[in-house]
Structures are given as structure tokens and as C-alpha cells.
């Protein structure tokens, strides 16, 4: 432990330490604050991550950033400077992940973000993601829209980075697909009423509405739309892929369609899906510990991050705690191919630090109060 203690301890710390035997993975997660419903399952997944890889023991440290980018920055510094982290994980949202990534780039530490964060070219070599690109997720939805003949789409998204990213992602894709975006509305996580937005959506007569929110709040527009008699399809994003969303939305969210990582419906996946085996394993273990319906896409992202890190550790040579080792880990991460995890198969390369393909997302529909796998073809 290398905490803030007395001067004498600090001075002792100056003497060169014996080569560390274990690899340190340090995560900054949004366990509290607005993104707590993402951070909590991520934190809970910690127990299911590999304890060693390639003969090296792995030590995990988790810090809470309260969904605050400033704190995420401090956490990342603490990870690198205080905990001597070899790999960073996190954070749960794009703005907090950007903070962590900035420190990662500055200190030369590889980071696996759990949010689709965009960073500068200078920092990019150090940043990997175990989350699907919004574009990948959106493509599944748009495919479904085209198949079912949706031509007019209404959009209502979070008034934050998440909603903003989704809007930016889908706008050109919709245009290319010939779907008209007829209304764009915003709402906040803590809004008690979205009547104004819903009225405006309904007034623009869309065939379907896309709600871009995360966690339970995204149920509110769905409820409002149904109350105002909207009968069209309601699409949600993967941010809402928690059973809490169904619980809060009740009958109003029945039939809504979401793109998710395969883990959410692991037991329902076709046998041919590569993630089925490892997915069911994680799914069963998680359910055993946290109860039926507790599995969310977010925990899956953390699990994937763990798998990627472990694969990189197994491949990298060097002494943990040194810049050379971190560089080796980075190189190893960039070279990973065919890493099968619960959210698909990762093939990372210098151009692609997401590494996902079509196998990393499936569509699900809320049917009888549960997520049901929805085959796209």
C-alpha cells in the first residue's frame, strides 16, 4: 500500500523496490453520481475477472469517480502515480473516460475505456475500448428500421454527452439510409416530466422514436409516448439494457427494441454465436451472486476489459511497474486478435481500438417483461 502517510514512509518508498511480481490494473468507475447504474454492475463484475494471466498475478484497484471528470482525472493520476498501475480501466461515461485517457496518454499507460470515447490522435495509441461503437449499435437499429419500413424517425436524447454522441452518430447514418429525422428533443435524467418533448415528437408524426438515454430514465419518454397514444415502434439504445428499465417502464416499454452486447441475452444466443459459451458462464455466475435479471451490458464491458487486459498481460514481456512494460502491454493490446469474450470477438489493430464486428451486437425486444433475442434476418 502506497498511501498518503508520513514523511518517513515516503522516504522509505524512495529506496528501489524489488521487482514487483504482480501486475496492477487500476480502474476508475462511476459508482456514484448520475452514471451510478453503469458503474455499479461494472464494479460488481470485478470479482469475475481473471486473477492471473501468463503466470503473473493480477492486482485490481477500483476507485470511484462519482461521474465527475475532474475526479476521474485525479483517480487516473492516483492509479499511475500512487498505485503504479500497469493498465488503467474506465471510466463508465465518455467525459470521465476522456479524463482518464488524457492521463493515460500523458503517462504512457494503456487504458481500456468502458465508454465510446473519442480522443486526440496523440493519445489514441494508448486508448482501447471494450464497448461497441455507437455507430455499430446504431447500424443494427437502422437495419431494423429499413426492414420494417420506417421513414420518419423522432429522436429524444439525454441532455448530456451520451445523448449528444448518439445524435451525432445517427444523423448521417439515417440520412444515408433515407430515413428522415423529423424531431430532435432533449431530456434530463432527473426530469419529472417529458410531456413537452413527447407532445412535440408526436406532433411531428414519426413512424418510430429513438430514445437515447441510459438506465431507467429512458423509460420516461416511452411511458409518455404511450400515454399520448403513440403506437409506433420505440427504439432504445444499449444504455437502457438493464432489467430496471423494464421494471420502471412496465407495459409501456413492452415491444421496444434495443441493440445490446450479446451478454445480455447470453442463454438465448444461437449456439453458433462465439460469445455463447463464455457469455453463459459469466451470466450464470453473475446471476448466482446478484440475482435473476441482474446481468447488464455494463458488467459485460468490464468483463471484456478484463479479458483483453489478461490477454495482453499473457502476451507482454517485461517487469511490471516499469514504463517499458506498459509499452509492451500497449503493443500487445494493439496486436490482440480473436479474443472471444462475452460481448463478441475482439480483433484490435493500429487503426481500430474498438475491435468489434457484427458479432458484438444483437437486437433484443422487450417481450413479456424480459429481453428476447431478436434475429435480424
Amino acid at each position, binding site marked *: 500500500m502506497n498511501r*498518503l502517510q508520513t514523511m518517513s514512509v515516503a522516504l522509505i*518508498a524512495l529506496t528501489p523496490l524489488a521487482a514487483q511480481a504482480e501486475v496492477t490494473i487500476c480502474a476508475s468507475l462511476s459508482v*456514484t453520481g448520475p452514471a451510478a447504474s453503469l458503474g455499479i454492475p461494472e464494479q460488481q463484475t470485478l470479482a469475475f475477472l481473471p486473477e492471473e494471466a501468463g503466470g503473473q498475478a493480477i492486482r485490481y484497484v477500483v476507485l470511484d469517480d462519482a461521474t465527475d471528470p475532474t475526479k476521474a*482525472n485525479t483517480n487516473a493520476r*492516483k492509479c499511475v502515480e*500512487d498505485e503504479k498501475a500497469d493498465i488503467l480501466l474506465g471510466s463508465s461515461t465518455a467525459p470521465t473516460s476522456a*479524463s482518464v485517457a488524457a492521463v493515460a496518454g500523458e503517462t504512457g499507460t494503456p487504458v481500456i475505456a468502458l465508454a465510446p470515447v473519442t480522443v486526440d490522435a496523440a493519445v489514441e495509441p494508448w486508448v482501447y475500448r471494450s464497448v461497441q461503437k455507437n455507430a455499430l449499435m446504431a447500424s443494427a437499429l437502422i437495419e431494423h428500421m429499413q426492414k420494417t419500413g420506417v421513414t420518419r424517425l423522432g429522436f429524444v436524447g439525454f441532455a448530456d454527452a451520451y445523448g449528444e454522441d448518439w445524435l451525432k452518430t445517427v444523423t448521417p447514418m439515417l440520412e444515408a439510409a433515407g430515413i428522415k429525422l423529423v424531431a430532435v428533443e432533449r431530456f434530463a435524467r432527473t426530469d419529472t416530466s417529458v410531456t413537452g418533448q413527447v407532445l412535440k415528437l408526436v406532433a411531428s408524426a414519426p413512424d418510430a422514436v429513438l430514445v437515447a438515454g441510459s438506465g431507467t430514465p429512458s423509460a420516461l419518454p416511452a411511458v409518455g409516448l404511450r400515454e399520448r397514444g403513440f403506437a409506433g415502434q420505440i427504439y432504445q439504445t444499449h444504455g437502457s439494457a438493464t432489467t430496471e428499465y423494464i421494471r420502471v417502464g412496465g407495459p409501456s416499454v413492452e415491444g421496444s427494441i434495443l441493440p445490446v452486447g450479446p451478454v445480455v441475452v447470453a442463454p438465448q444466443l444461437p449456439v453458433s454465436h462465439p460469445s455463447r459459451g463464455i457469455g453463459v458462464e459469466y451470466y450464470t455466475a453473475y446471476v448466482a451472486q446478484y440475482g435473476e435479471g441482474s446481468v447488464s451490458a455494463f458488467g459485460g464491458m468490464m468483463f471484456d476489459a478484463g479479458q483483453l487486459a489478461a490477454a495482453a498481460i499473457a502476451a507482454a514481456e517485461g517487469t511490471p511497474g516499469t514504463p517499458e512494460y506498459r509499452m509492451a502491454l500497449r503493443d500487445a493490446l494493439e496486436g490482440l486478435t480473436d479474443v472471444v469474450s462475452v460481448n463478441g470477438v475482439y480483433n484490435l489493430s493500429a487503426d481500430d481500438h474498438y475491435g468489434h464486428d457484427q458479432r458484438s451486437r444483437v437486437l433484443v425486444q422487450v417481450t413479456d417483461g424480459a429481453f428476447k433475442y431478436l434475429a435480424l434476418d
Partner: protein
Amino acid sequence: MRTPLLTFLAAVVLVLPASGVLPAFWATLLNMIGISAIVALGLVVLTGVGGMTSFGQAAFVGVAAYCSALLTTRYGFSPWLALPVVLVVTSIAATLIGLVTVRLSGHYLPLGTICWGMAVYYLFGNLDLLGGFNGISGIPPVSLFGHPLLDSRQFWPLVLVMLGVSLYLTRNLLDSRAGRAIRALRSGTTAAEAFGIAPARAKLAVFIYAGFLAGLAGWLFAHLQRSVTPTAFSLNAGIEFLLMAVIGGSGRLWGAVLGAAIVVLLKNALQDYLPLLFGSIGSLEVIFFGVVLVLTLQKAREGLWPVLAEHIPQRRSPVDEIATALAMPVRPKGEGPFLLEAIGINKRFGGLVAVNDVSFSLAKGEILTLLGPNGAGKSTTFNLLTGVLSLSSGEVRIAGHSVAGASPSQIAGLGVARTFQHVKLVPEMSVLENVALGTHLRGDSGFLRCLLRLDRPQEAQLLAEAARAIRRVGLADRIHSPADSLSLGETRIVEIARAICLAPRVLLLDEPAAGLRKAEKNRLAELLRELRAEGLGILLVEHDMDFVMSLTDRIVVLDFGTRIAAGLPDEIRKNPRVQEAYLGSVA
């Protein structure tokens, strides 16, 4: 720097983290402390000294951080070139918001700061120019002699220097004419106005200064984090800065540093140890800070610095009484025989007539007493003469000039000084500082001059003048005592000393002898006679008949707001109406 020890400590703090001897994370924490302390310092001046609570200071940090981010990423400014622009922009923003905010009275002010704190956060998040809720990243680091300050250890000296500059400027400010004016506002504006301080201007100046410091912190923040997002400048951040100021001691310079250090270090410690104690990580930190805030307010309302400072011996620089005397203030020449005339003045509150058609006049070198039972309208008359209340009808002339509609500070500018029935001193200021408030109109050092310590020669003159007045009223041995340690009688004398410092033509004394012991009364009477001999006109409101009768030249008797008699003391003593209305009731 106050002592060699402090200088030594500063050197240690500067060199150690930067040298790479200490763990880098210490430097990270120190940077956080330093930047927060600069914001908290602004709050110390704003809240602790100026009495204006702001929950919205993070908004100014945000304005500055965003401004610098925008200039450096989009328009290719270097951070150093951006700094002056950032400070100007933040000051302008503070001026605009301040123009509205400082006019809010009482508790509306903090509520207003909550509201703009919220509004600015949502504004940041919704402007495409500012990158929306994702903010702006890729901000370049500050370079020093061609070296980019990337690491927190390299950045620390910069933070320390900026903090040092902020502390230096703030100390200069508080220890000056402008600072006294600000400090006087905390305990109400009536007394401050009576000595020529314009509260709205002083408050605005403080508000802008606090915004300026927040701007400096915002610039540092932007180039330390090298990315900005709205969340960092939300209301919660504003509350945290206030928490620092309150915990450290919202009235004290070093309280800001102490508070910032406590909050940042505690946060870090809580993050380390709370999970060990309670298992799950979660919301315990915010609960803890809430409890700390409430307990601080319950147990140590002035914060923790005063508790610590008790053990640090205070050194006081002696007042240089031989500084060149202040020039006499330039005032409009007196016209006519009287210094002060009330001509048929009236004051009605709704249906109640408090002062009814009262006239009197006061000549040079004369002591006039207003006499009357409680509720006769004496204090109301005082407030009418000094512009605290506006006349319903009638006219007040000072040295022949009509002062209809003039503010208390304008009337003070004409050479009218007063004391208050309910003593209005600033309790936490020393006798010297309180009395020096009286010299406010005789100096002209503005905010900037005071900040940069260019006011020293004049400040020495002002303090010397105050010290002379204190010696003259016989309180030389209490010159450095805080005002709240004095007896009631002494505070009345201090008020008189403060009034004398204005170099008044007219002195209005509201019950100066109340609460004085016999010997003190005699000394006071002696002083008043001296002043009369110097040509002052003195208007007294007094209950103590023995004190008045031996001293006053003439008496005006009021009852129920109406003048019932006027004349020499002996005539009044014999007047049957007066005996009935006043003397009878006393006896």
C-alpha cells in the same frame, strides 16, 4: 512572508514536490489544493469578509477554463497569451453577473448564485461551440522557458507561484483602505455609508475580485487537466469551494488554504479508507462532507483557522504616528451662519407621524441638544439629517447647501459625522481599523492601488490619523484590541474617535454618554468642549440630564415628534411643558 519560518516552509513546499523526491501523486494533490485554494481565497474575501455567500463560484472557474480552452485549441493562442484574455473575460463576466447579484439583498444573494450556478452549467453543456457535454479536450500544456509542464510535479511550482500571488494580493487588499471598506459591509451597510463608503460599488469590486481569482484558478485548471467538461463547474463544485472556505475559516486568508487542504486530503483519505471500513464504495464521502460542514457550522462557525491561529503569536507593526498629517478634506465652502439647519422637517411612516414639522439650527462652535422621552422622534430626526431616511417634507441644509435626496455617503462628504444609538462597530476588526474607517473619505486609494500595495504612504497617514484620534479619546492602550472585546462605554468612545477622523464640521452624537462611568463621562465632556472650541458644531441626543446641562449651549425638546420647547438649559429646566412631558416622566 510573515516569518523566516514561513519562507523556509514555502521553499520546502516549492522544491520538494518539483524535485521528484516526493511521489508524483503528492504533487497532484498539492496542485488540486493550490487551485482550489485560489478559488476559496476569492470566497474568503467575498463571503467571509464581504458577507456575500456564493454557491456559484465554480461557474467563473468554468468561464475561464472554457475561455482558455477555446483560445488555445481553436485560435492557436499560447496559454500565456491566453491568460490575460481569460482574466479580462472572467472579470467582465463577473461584472455583468455581479451588477445584478450584488444588488440582491440578504438571503436573495446566495439564492441568486445557486440559480446562475445551475444555469451556467446547462449553458456550457448545450453550446456546440464549447463541445457540449463532452467539453473540449487536447488543451496544450503551459510552457515555461520552452519546457512544457506536463507532469504534475512540473506544474506544481506554477500553481504555488499563482497561489502566492493571490495570497499576496488578497492580503494587501484586506490590509488597506479598500479592504476596511469591504470588511465594514459584513456587519451592515448603515455605518459604512455614514463614512462615505458606497456599498454597491465596494460589493461589486469584491465580487469582481473573487471572479478574477476564480478565473486564475480556471486557467490553471484547464492547462493542468488539459480537458474541460461542464461537470467540473457544476453547482456541486461551487458548493465544494464554499465548503473549503467555511471549514478553513471564511474570514481568514490562510483559512482558504487550510480549507482546501483539508477537503482535498480528506477526500483522498476517504477514498482510500472508507471502502476498507465499510466494504462497498459509494456515497459515504458525500455524507461525510455534509456532516463535516454541518458540524463545522455548529461547533466552529468561524472555521478551523482561528482555532489554529490562537496558537500562533500575532505580530503587529507599530503605527507610525509621526507620518505626515493628512490634508484637510476639500469641501464646498460654507454659506450662511449655520452649519446645519432643519427647516420644517417631516417624516411619516404610513399613517404614523414620527417627526412633525421640526425646525432648528446649529452654528459653528456650538453644542445643541435634542431632548425628549423615548419615542419622541430623536433618532428618526438623526436619520433624516444624515440621509439614512428620506424626508417626507421640509428641508435640511448643511453649511447652507440643501441636501434633499442626498445619500448618507454624500452627506458624510459634506463633513457630517455621526455615532449610533446602537453601536455599529465591526466586531472582528481592531479599534484602530474601526477608527480608520472614519478616514475613508480623506483617502483616495482605490481597489487596484490597494491590491498592488501602492497605497502605503497614504495608508500610513490614514492609520496615523486614526491613532491620533484614539489617543485623543483616551483609548491608546486598547488600540489593537478587537472591537468585540470592549465594554459598551468604550465602544461609544471608539465611535466618537471614528467620527472625529472624518474631520467633520458637524458631529451628531446619539446618546454618547449612555453606559459610561462617571470618570469617562467627565473626560467625554472635556473632549466635546475641546471640539467645540475648535469650531465644530455638535448635535447631541442625550438622556443624561446632568451630563447635558453642564455642557450644552442650547436645547430643543421634542415630544411625539413635535418640537415643544427650545432655549438655554436654564429656560428649559423651568419650562412647565418640558417638566410635564419629559422631566416629570423621568422623575
